[in-house]
């Protein structure tokens, strides 16, 4: 197998993005659930939590998470299409469409934040 050629392929990039985004989301999820579960004990606690999320770094992390979720979703749909529908001829288009969708979701989130 020509590994360097293989790695240069768009599909390898898509594989790495899918794996890293999945890993990051799996690490984030328990913290997300825990924070949400703790914050909703009452309106005051939740307001305190929401105020904490107003910090620029937290907002940046939120945008990153939206992009990661969108990327993992789009890459996953591409994989399901490849495995179950055999859309191999569409590979590069599918990779590009996945990347575009992730970016669009992040930008839409950013616009709606009204920063």
């Amino acid at each position: 197998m020509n590994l360097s050629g293989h790695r240069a392929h768009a599909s390898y990039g898509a594989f790495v993005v899918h794996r890293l985004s999945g890993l990051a989301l799996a690490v984030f999820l328990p913290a997300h659930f825990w924070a949400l579960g703790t914050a909703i004990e009452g309106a005051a606690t939740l307001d305190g939590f929401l105020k904490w999320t107003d910090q620029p770094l937290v907002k940046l992390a939120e945008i990153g998470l939206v992009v990661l979720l969108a990327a993992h979703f789009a890459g996953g749909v591409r994989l399901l299409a490849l495995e179950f529908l055999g859309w191999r001829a569409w590979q590069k288009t599918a990779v590009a469409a996945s990347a575009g969708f992730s970016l669009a979701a992040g930008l839409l989130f950013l616009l709606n934040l009204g920063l």
Partner: protein
Amino acid sequence: MSGPLTDAVRSDLRLWLAQRASAAVLAACVVVHLALIIYAVRGGLSAAAILGRTHGSLVWLGFYLVFIAAVAVHAPIGLRQIVREMTGWRGRSLDAVAAVFAALLVVLGVRAVWGLFA
């Protein structure tokens, strides 16, 4: 190769199928979740605005319970696969850790969703 499948191969096959089936459910859930969070952050969020809309909403409670169930299947299988491919860790101890992670997601997820929507 022919002959009956070993238990380990059969188990891996079941996990592979569960991973794909949960991915299909998650695909639908994530579209709704992304649309909801992009819509919800418009004009800022306040606790009263969030809780006022979510409390007592059984449809959203049902939706997020399905979402959590699918995540609790999908994420531990994915993590188990990454660990198997990148380290030498295999066997029952890895399966047990993946199962504990699944249980953690269910407990924390249901707690959060119940507080928001019930």
